[in-house]
Structure formats: C-alpha cells, structure tokens
C-alpha cells in the first residue's frame, strides 16, 4: 500500500464525519450529492488493501483511543464500505431535491459512525461511533416526513435510546470489572465477573435492539420500509450488523462455555428466523417483507452466536462463519432493497433480465447453488455439525436451519410477488441503475474475490457444491416453492369463489 494504514483509517472515519460541513453553503448542494459515493472510498481501500495487524494509538482521545482492524473487523469493514458505496451511487440517482442537504448530513454522520465503530478497539470510541450511528440514523428513517415515517422514527428512537443505555451500562460494568478501557479486555473480565449474567443480559439486549433480536425488533419493520430506498439498504444491510459486531467483540466467547445463554440465544434466533418469516409473508409492502427477511436472517446469525456462546471451543470457527454470513447477507439484502426502487424497462426481454437480476440476490439468500448464499449456508452447516458440538440443543440445529432456509425462500417469493404488483414501467436515472447493478454485481460476482475466510469449512472449489451438498441446498427450496405455489393456487381458488 502507498498510504500507511493509520492515515488511511483516519481518512476513512473523518471524511464522512467532516463531509456534513459542506451543508453550510447552499451552493455546494450539488457537489454534496455527487460526493455521496466517494465517502466510503478510503474505508474500502483500507479493507481491501491492508493486512490486519496494525493499530493506531491515540492516547489523547477520550479515555485513550485505539483503532485497529483484525480479521472479523476487516470483513465487517468491507461490507460496510461496499454497501454504503453502492447505496451512495444509487442515492445520487434517486434522491429528490427537497431536504437534500439534510439527508446528506445524516448520511455522512451515520456512515462515519458505522465505519468508526468497526475499526474502534477502545470502549470510548466504539461506543461513541455506535451512538453517532444510532442517532444520525434517525435522520435517515424519518427523512420522508410522512406520518408513518415519523411514527417509525419515534419507535426507532425510543428503542435505540433504551438500547444505548443498556449498552452503556453493560460496558460500564464490564469496564469496571476489567479495569481497562479496551474492548479486547472485556470478554475475559466478563467471564470472571460476579456480575456476569447482568452484564451479559445488558449487552445482549443492548446490541440486540440493533440486531433485531425478537421482541426487540419492533422498530425494524417500521423503520426500514419508510426510509428512502438507499437508506433502507444500508440500514438493513450494514447497520443491523453493527449489533452483531457488538456481540462478537464484547461477549465472552471462547472464555468459558455458557450453555444457558447459548440456549437462550439459540431459541431467540430460531424464534426470529421462523417467526419473522410467518409475519413477513403476511406483509403487503415489498420493503416490509424485506425487513422481516432481515430479522429472519439475523435470527440465523443469532443462532450461530448462541452456539458459539454455548460451546466455547467452536467459537473461533463460528466467528469466521458468522462474519462470512453477515457479509453475504448484507450484500444480498442491500441489492434486494435497492431493487425495490427501480422501474421496469419497456421491452419484454429487458424486463425478464431485470426481473432475473432482482430475483438472483434473493435466491442467493435462500442458498441457490453457485451463489454466495450457497457458500454461506454450507459453511454454516459445517460449523453447526451436530457431532462436533457438545450441548443439549445441538440436535435441533439442523432442522432449524432447514426451516430457516424454507422461510427465507418463502419471504423472497413473497417479496417478488408484492414487488411485481408495485413496480411500474418507466425510465430510471442512470446513477440509480448504476448503483443497483453495482450492488447486484458485488453480491453475485465480486463476492468471490473478497478476502473472506472460511478456512477448511467448505470443500474447494467452494462455489461448486458437491452433489450431496447440492441436494441439501435444493430440497428446502423446493419445499418453499411448493408451498408458494400451493398458496398461489389457494388464493386463486378463494378469489374465484
């Protein structure tokens, strides 16, 4: 690399952080709009070009600042940068001129928070960026100014503030137990602390609000659909993962097995994965369906977090899987959200291509072979193999994953169905198309060149599943397809009567 990493990381965070200053002059509004895609560029370079292992110490910052990127953080950073970039391109095309500067300000701040929390290693700056992202995200949610958006914003804010407080308390307790201001020292201290359960509860609940943990998810299906489309994409694709990252860096994985908490998380994940699907298929609006799909997918990740908690030995392996899954889901979900805003072209052939491009990331989510989804699903299956796990609920994991896959596809089908009723024919702004295509492209193609690591979990060549795996991937999809057709037929029948 030409640039040393510390400089790059400062640029990565400070560029979006200072970008809102452009709003001071009305004349710069246009420049502001076109600057949107550039903001995550340093972060992208950092994620792609640097090897983990460096760190930036800033003893003057808060209670002593330390920024660094390790393997897991690198994947999250990559996801964040890529998604915000494609959404930024898309935003250039789709934004309406009213309140444009306000939107850009919140966009920049939210992005700064999202990137910053990914690279922060000390508690102070991590929590600062987390809070920045939360509060600035409110501006994105309510941007449209409709009553619905305002209501969603209110729910978002109330839950977010409660979540922030839970995190603050949890971090405070953990930090006091550790006697340190670094995140890396927390897991060990939490595991040894007499207040372990309280801290765990606070951190799980606090980050759970962001991650859409069941019962803490209420804001999510309200907020994601009402935000402007690019904002929905980053909300659902990147910001939701911040909660996940929060868990990964604070909870005591690998320190001591906690079957109780693990079981709780597994149950929560299962409830999220299946329950969200049930609620999701009843939704009328495509973006609401996608929001529930996000909850459902996060449920699967929660499930893996639960397993990692329950079985301390498997935690390192599962970390890679979770990060991989998060990356895959973020990109695919981002593409899906962005597709909700495109208009169909006129010709039938073109329409078919567009529909295909809309559907493919969805099917990838469901684990379509030769996609990133297949890889992620297989990695997950490998990670959760029953015979390698040692706790009570291990036997239920496999059926749960299958059910999850069925649920995923059902939701995608529901999404396509509702979308088909909504998408109109018309001309798309070029930047909008560019953003969307970039998203789809990244999700389907560029993924394979990204520096994910699923060391030894999936047989090489990874993108070509073995036959037995193929079947494992496909049969839940067939069930879902069957169910969907059944429903379609039934609804026709009902309509005819």
């Amino acid at each position: 690399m030409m640039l040393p990493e510390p400089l790059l990381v400062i640029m990565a965070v400070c560029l979006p952080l200072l970008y809102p200053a452009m709003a001071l002059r009305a004349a710069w509004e246009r420049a502001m709009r076109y600057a949107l895609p550039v903001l995550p560029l340093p972060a992208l370079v950092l994620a792609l070009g640097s090897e983990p292992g460096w760190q930036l110490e800033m003893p003057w910052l808060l209670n002593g600042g330390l920024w660094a990127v390790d393997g897991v953080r690198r994947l999250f950073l990559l996801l964040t940068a890529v998604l915000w970039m494609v959404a930024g391109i898309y935003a250039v095309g789709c934004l309406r001129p009213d309140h444009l500067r306000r939107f850009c300000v919140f966009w920049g701040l939210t992005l700064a928070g999202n990137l910053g929390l990914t690279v922060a290693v000390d508690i102070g700056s991590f929590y600062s960026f987390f809070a920045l992202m939360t509060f600035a995200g409110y501006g994105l949610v309510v941007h449209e100014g409709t009553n619905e958006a305002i209501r969603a914003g209110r729910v978002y804010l109330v839950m977010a503030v409660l979540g922030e407080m839970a995190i603050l308390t949890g971090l405070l307790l953990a930090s006091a137990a550790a006697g340190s201001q670094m995140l890396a020292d927390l897991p060990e201290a939490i595991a040894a602390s007499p207040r372990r359960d309280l801290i765990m509860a606070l951190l799980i609940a606090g980050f759970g609000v962001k991650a859409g943990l069941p019962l803490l998810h209420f804001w999510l299906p309200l907020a994601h659909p009402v935000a402007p489309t690019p904002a929905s994409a980053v909300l659902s694709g990147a910001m939701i993962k911040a909660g996940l990252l929060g868990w990964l860096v604070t909870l005591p994985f690998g320190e001591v097995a906690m079957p109780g908490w693990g079981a709780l998380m597994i149950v929560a994940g299962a409830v999220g994965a299946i329950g969200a699907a049930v609620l999701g298929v009843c939704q009328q609006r495509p973006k609401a369906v996608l929001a529930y799909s996000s909850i459902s997918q996060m449920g699967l990740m929660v499930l893996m977090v639960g397993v990692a908690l329950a079985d301390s030995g498997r935690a390192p392996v599962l970390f890679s899987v979770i990060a991989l899954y998060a990356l895959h889901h973020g990109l695919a979900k981002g593409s899906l959200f962005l597709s909700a805003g495109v208009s169909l072209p006129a010709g039938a052939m073109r329409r078919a291509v567009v529909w295909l491009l809309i559907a493919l990331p969805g099917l990838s989510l469901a684990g379509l072979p030769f996609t990133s989804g297949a890889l992620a699903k297989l990695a997950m299956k490998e990670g959760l193999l029953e015979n390698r796990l040692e706790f009570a609920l291990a036997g239920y994991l496999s059926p749960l994953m299958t059910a999850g896959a069925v649920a995923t596809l059902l939701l995608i089908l529901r999404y396509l169905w509702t979308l088909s009723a909504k998408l109109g024919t018309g001309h798309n702004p070029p930047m909008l198309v560019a953003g969307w295509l970039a998203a789809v492209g990244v999700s389907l193609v560029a993924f394979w060149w990204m520096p994910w690591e699923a060391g030894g979990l999936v047989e090489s060549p990874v993108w070509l599943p073995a036959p037995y795996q193929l079947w494992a991937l496909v049969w839940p999809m067939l069930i879902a397809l069957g169910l969907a057709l059944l429903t379609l037929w039934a609804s026709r029948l009902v309509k005819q009567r």
Partner: protein
Amino acid sequence: MTLNTWIPVLALMTSLIASLVIFALPEKGYRLRTAVNLGAALLKLGLVVVMVWGVFRGVGYGVSFTMVPGVTFVLKADAFSMMFAGLSAVLWLLTTIYAVGYLEDSPNRSRFFGFFSLCVASTMGIALAGNLFTFFLFYEMLTLSTYPLVVHRGTEKALKAGRTYVIYTLTGGAVLLLAIAWLHGVVGDLPFREGGHFTGSDPDIHRSLTLIFILLVAGLGVKAAIFPLHGWLPQAMVAPAPVSALLHAVAVVKAGAFGIVRVVHDVYGVDASSALGLLEPLAWLAAFTIIYASVRALWQVDLKRRLAFSTVSQVSYIILGVSIFGPVAAVGGLVHLLHQGIMKITLFFCAGNYAETLGIHRIDEMDGAGRRMPGTSVAFTIGAFGMIGAPPLAGFITKWTMGSGALAVNMDWVVVVLVASSLLNAAYFLPVLYRLWFRKPAAHWPHERQWGRLETSAWLFWPPLLTAVMTVMVGVLASLPFSPLSWAELIVLREYSP
C-alpha cells in the same frame, strides 16, 4: 509583596474595576463600554492562564490579612479554585460578547454590564477564596450583584422572580452564615486545605460537626438548587438570556456546588466526612434531585424553564460525584463542574438566539427552526446530546467517569441513577431536537428580525458555536493534559493524597 501575591488580587480586581468604570460610563458610550468589557475579560483570562500554569507547577499564589478580629480574609489559588476561575474567565468572555449583541438597543445597559462584571468579580472571589469566611463574603456579594440582573427587564414577572430569588438565596445565606460562625466558634478559623481538617478529630465535637455540615449543605444547597431548595431557579428564567446563561452555567448554581465541594474536600476532608456518615445521605439527596428535576423538566413547555430544570438536575451530578467516597467518582463530579457549565451555556445561548431572532420562547414554536438558524441549532443539538450523555461529548465523560467510580466503590445504584437520568434527559431533549430539524416551520415566526448575511447577529452567532465546539473538544480530547478531565484528576490526586 511579590507578584505572586498580587496576581489573584489583580484577577479579582479586573472585573471589579471594570464594573465601576462601566457604572460611571454614560449610557450612550457603546464602543467604550464594549472595549472595557472585552478588555477586562481578556485581561482576566490571561491572568487565569498564568495562574493555571503556576498552580500546575506548584507555585503558591495568595494574599491574606485580618479582616475582623479572629478571622482572616484569604485569597489563594489552588487547583480546584483554578478550575472554577478558568470556567468563569472563559465563559465570561463569551457571555460578554453575547450580551453585547443581545442587549443592542435595549435600555439600562450601563447598569446591566456593571452588575454583570460585579457578578463575575464575585465568582472570581468565590473561586479564589481561601477560607469559608472569605467564601461567604463573595457568596453574598454574588447574590446581591445578580439580583439586578434577574430583575433587569423590570416587568412584574421579573420582579416576582427576583423576589423569590432573593428570599431563597438570602435565607440560604443566613443559614450558611450561622454554620460558618458556629464552625468558627467550635474550631476557629480554618483555611481550605486539601485533605481537610477533621481526619481523626476529637469525638466530642462530632455532633456539632454533623449539625454544622447539615447547615452548610442547606445554606449552599440553595444556590446549588438541591431539592427542595431549587424553587427559585426556574423562576429566575425571566432574566435576559446572557444572565440565565451565566446564572445557570457559571456563577450562581456553580457557586453553591463549588462551596459544597470545598466543604467536603477542603474543610471536612473526604475521610472525615465519610467517617461522620455525612456523604451517603448527601449522595441520596443529590440522586433524588437528579431524577426529580428531570421528571419535572419533562412537563415544561417554556424552553428556558425546561433548561432550568435540567440545570437543577445536572448540578446535582457534581454533588453526587463528590459525595461518593472514591477518587474516580470525585473526578467525575468535579469535571462536571466544567462540563455542565460549557454545555448549559451553549443551550442558553441558543435559547436566547431563538428568542431574540425569531421570538421563540415556547418549545412548540420551535418547529423547523433548524432550517432558519442552522448554526444555532447545531450548537443546540450538540449541547442537548452532551446533556443526554451521548459520547463522545462532555456529558459522556462525566457519566462514564462517575459510573466507573461508583462501581469501584460498590455503589451500583449510582449507575441506575445515571442511566435513568440519561433516559429522562433524552426524553425531554430529543422531542425538541425533532421539532427543530424535522418539523415543517410555521408560516411565520412569532417575532422575526433580520441580520443580513448570518442567521442572526454575529455577536450572538459565534459564542454558542464556540461553546459547542468546546463541548465536543473537552469530550473528544479528554485525555490531553490540561483538559478538564486531567485537571480534575490533578485536583483529586492532591485531595486524596495530600
């Protein structure tokens, strides 16, 4: 007498002399008055900076003489007094700039600025006072010099507020005087000393000491607006904005809080206060005040009244921090003395800007003001988030430090109080921010004035922005030397290991 004995006196005199000069100036001497005001403020800031540097290196500044037989008048600069003096010097400068703009074309400006400077001189005296007697002297002077500021508008409402203010503060002053005189009768003239005087004191006087402590806190608690002695503060909101800013951020409430810290740390000593069992009830009282005032703030529709209740709540943080028996929590309390000052003055400046530029006083009139006055509103937003305790702003550093300190001495309930207070703060600040930024503005503002290029007069525009930047900086750069946090650590280091 060397230069070192004269510097505290000079720091005191700059504002005192400025005040007398301003009183003598004719009402129309606008430029000269402004020049005197700003010159004195800058001079004082310079003197304080010199003293801060000196105190850091361990130089002693001080002067004393016998005033009444048996008691001495002592001016002395130690680390803690420099904290308060620094705060008042910096914010005086900004508030003066602000007030010049705020009071443009209004009557009685000579009177206003004269008393304003007198008020700052008193604050300086409070900061530099070297014993309780001297402290009391300036404490009462502060009461007197702020009264004309509170009633400055001369309306019935203002006079009523002034009356309440005087009744509260003078009664508090009487109680304080009784306590100080009693203490003097029991143990004689005690200078403020790090570590206090009563560690291992004679058990015979413990009962007296306890009673005196209660009286001292009651007397000082009036200005510090501890429940149930806070009633004057929301009423005093009728004063012009620079006054409320100064009253609430720097001078009056802080004088009370400063006094309580002095009593606990430098008269009784934390060990002795703790051994006498005085700290725990004080902590509970402060905690209750924090919650109670926040709840009251929720129901206020007038912006400044809401801010006032917020002040009541926030000042008790200082007291809470000091009454937790542990160094880290004490750092949290002390640092809030500065943090709260900077944040609250930002909010009051902004409230004043809204009132002066758009005629907005009530919260429900603030819809969409963010677009009309973005600079002010950004400052307001930063201040409000600071109050909530959102990182990385000043308020977060306070809460984090105080929370860590409380946990270190196993007072877990303090964390609950901190979190509850943050939630309540969010509950009464976030709706305001929402109105500012996301509501559509009303067709026309209640009373709009135009100022050309900037959203408001330049005198009014820059001070809140500067304090907002400071709010961010003292948080983000908390670990730099000479940051409020580092300075508070220095104070506590000297207090806990004298």
